[in-house]
């Protein structure tokens, strides 16, 4: 019997929020997985804190609703503990790019086999509208009423520099592509990073801006690092430019988790080995 994928928790996202698209996309990806005969018991969703993170309450699967910025280390521990689990993180842009930036860079550097979906609305949603590391220069938020004086950084370029092995950009108003990207990211063996341009209907509605600039990548060789860098730099999250959507870069490398032993030790073995070690310390 197929599992009911949505919990009974009351949904509190604003009308028009891009998180609904992400929820339905994830639901579809999970349902497909079940249809393919894979168990959902082996899937763990790890979320940060923010509007995006409510996904943990709304999807009826294993989940850890963690702390602001800390999806990645928790997900890394889960994957190392049990490599048979499929671990998916939903993080915010404040979450992954500000509070937990250190973990993001290290997840890419290590190539831990988890999937990170960044709900990038270029704003702190839950705390009612402050700038994030990807807000454009001059963004007027509650903490920067005169406009920000710092440029955004480009997370796609950052991930290329840090060694991520699957890098993609999606958009919540292009759901079929988003679904493919998330599906492929989960299927990828290694650290999969998906920056999702997510509409925040209340605090920073970028719909018009995105609609006139986004395009789907065709004929792009995602195995070509130089080509990937060029595509990543086309739009810097600040100035006007075409915004590429799709898989930007992919490469296969051994994963962090594959270097750890999966064998465990019996009680008898443990005792015998402690005794042997102590003999050597006499």
């Amino acid at each position, binding site marked *: 019997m197929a599992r009911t994928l949505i*919990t009974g*928790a009351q949904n509190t996202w604003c009308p028009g929020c891009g998180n609904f698209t992400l929820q339905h996309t994830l639901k579809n990806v999970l349902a497909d997985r079940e249809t393919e005969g894979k168990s959902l018991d082996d899937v763990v969703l790890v979320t940060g804190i923010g509007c995006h993170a409510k996904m*943990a309450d709304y999807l009826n699967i294993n*989940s850890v609703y963690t702390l602001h910025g800390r999806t990645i*280390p928790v997900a890394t521990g889960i994957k190392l503990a049990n490599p048979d689990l499929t671990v998916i993180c939903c993080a915010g842009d404040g979450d992954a790019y500000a509070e937990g930036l*250190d973990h993001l*860079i290290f997840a890419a550097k290590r190539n831990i086999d988890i999937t990170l979906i960044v709900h990038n609305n270029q704003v702190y949603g839950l705390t009612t509208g402050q700038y994030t590391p990807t807000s454009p220069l001059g963004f007027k938020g509650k903490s920067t009423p005169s406009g920000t004086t710092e440029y955004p950084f480009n997370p796609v370029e950052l991930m290329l520099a840090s060694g991520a092995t699957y890098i993609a950009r999606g958009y919540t108003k292009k759901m079929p592509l988003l679904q493919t990207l998330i599906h492929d990211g989960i299927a990828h063996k290694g650290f999969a990073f998906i920056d999702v341009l997510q509409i925040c209907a209340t605090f920073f509605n970028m719909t018009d801006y995105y609609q006139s600039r986004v395009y789907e990548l065709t004929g792009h060789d995602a195995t070509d690092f130089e080509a990937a860098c060029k595509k990543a730099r086309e739009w810097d999250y600040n100035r006007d430019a075409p915004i590429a959507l799709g898989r930007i870069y992919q490469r296969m490398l051994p994963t962090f988790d594959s270097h750890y032993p999966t064998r465990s030790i019996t009680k008898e073995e443990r005792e015998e080995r*402690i005794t042997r070690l*102590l003999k050597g310390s*006499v």
Partner: protein
Amino acid sequence: MAKEVSVLIGGKAGDGINNAGAMIARMFSHLGYRVFMYYDYPSLIRGGHNFAIVRASEQPVAVHQNRADFILALDQETVDLHQSHCPGCTLVINSDRVKPVDGAPSVSLTALLTAEAAPSIMGNSAMLGAFAKTAGIPWEKVESVFFAHMPKAEQNLRVARRAYDLVQTVRVVEPLHRAALPLLTGNEAVGLGLVKGGLAAYVSYPMTPSSSILHFLAEQKDRFCLKVVHPENEIAVILMALGFAYAGTRTAVGTSGGGFCLMTEGLSFAGMAEFPVVIVMSQRTGPSTGLPTYSGQADLHFVRSAGQGEFARLIVAPADADEAYVWSKIAMDCAWEYQVPAFVLIDKMLSEGTYSFTRDTTDDETLADPLRKGIAMPYARYRDTPDGISPLAFPGTKGAIVKANSYAHDEDGITIEEAPVVLQMTHKRMRKEESLISGLDRYHPVNLLGVPDASTALLCWGSTRGACVEAAGRLGLRVVQPVVLSPFPERQVKEALAGVKRLIVVEENATGQLAAVARQYGIPSDARVLNYDGRSFTPDELYERIQEVMH
């Protein structure tokens, strides 16, 4: 009087003083002595004065004395700094770097090394050979210790033998004809206790004095099938550990004060989400970066109250390597039995001190089974139960949806804000603390030592116990040492103090933190003996200090 001898070996950072001290400790151990070694070094890699004091006794020892019977001086500074504290001691000197001293056995390390065409790192073997002869230690003992613990033992022994033949015996250390015991540092004992408790993963970011747990377990990872991870910072450390715990892996982290500061948000998460995790917190002198390589007991309040909100935690503070082993295992078992964070609170003195280890490690206790209650479907991670402990399942369990949450949540792990559910779940977690308090009884959370019915008592915790027990022995005092510091074993401490007329609290901080905790539980103290210069109390010092406050 029990037979006892102390040896101080000193030189510059980079001279291998720690290893040489450990070899001396092993020689005494092979003579049948119980040993303790203190290693004193500044926080730098080269230069600066290092020394180790090895104290060997017929009785168990867990602390050094500053006066030594032998001083092995690799350099002049060792003589200048220590000789005056050690009247009547026997000097053994390295004549390359120390001015001649009348009657002192003396060897030129460079000359002996040249004679054997040996590399300079073997210089300490010459010093060890010279010492062994000076102390009348039979050559076979030197040989067996070198073969067991020295790489390239043959060549090192040839160097040692030349020195052994060169000097005369001055003061004989009598053999005790008892079997040698294993020697462990406190950190190694913690590591082994955790392994005994089922440790499968250790996550840590280097910070003195906890780092050698990381090094030890990383070295032993294949032997014990451990996943050892050194992540980007302590925030990642604690959160990775919580991820491990969520997925069912017994995990510990290790750090010192500064690193633990970064872990406090994760600690509170463990409290709320009910993740079992062991945190080894080895104190050094604070505040802030403080004295990285010196000891202290100033983090008791911090560890007792760290993290926002209120939640149960276990804190155990072992006194020596034996206790570190036993209580690290108990900490792991309790963390999983009660689904709480558990601390092993130690300090530099214990972490990096070397001890004779006397525990039987083959006792056949079974590990607490976190799944013992069986899980009912539909699974609810935070099911409300009479003892507050919810049946634990891990992701991957067929048909179980395991939802852990840092927000206030209902039994299913879904975020809630309704007042009645908030209260229900808070009460559930609080009942776990009650369960923990009664569960701890079987482990004897308080030690009663010294003269048990004396009317003056010392109250102490952690590594300070060694000096307290010795000082109390000379003064005829009672010693009460709570090993468990949270939940505070109020009843057991009060029982151990029954009939006491004068209570003296001994601890290594400036404000009397254990004294303050005891006062909260209606246990007033009459005097406090405090030390906070980073150096642990020695029995002699403590004896003097206690006498000042006896009446």
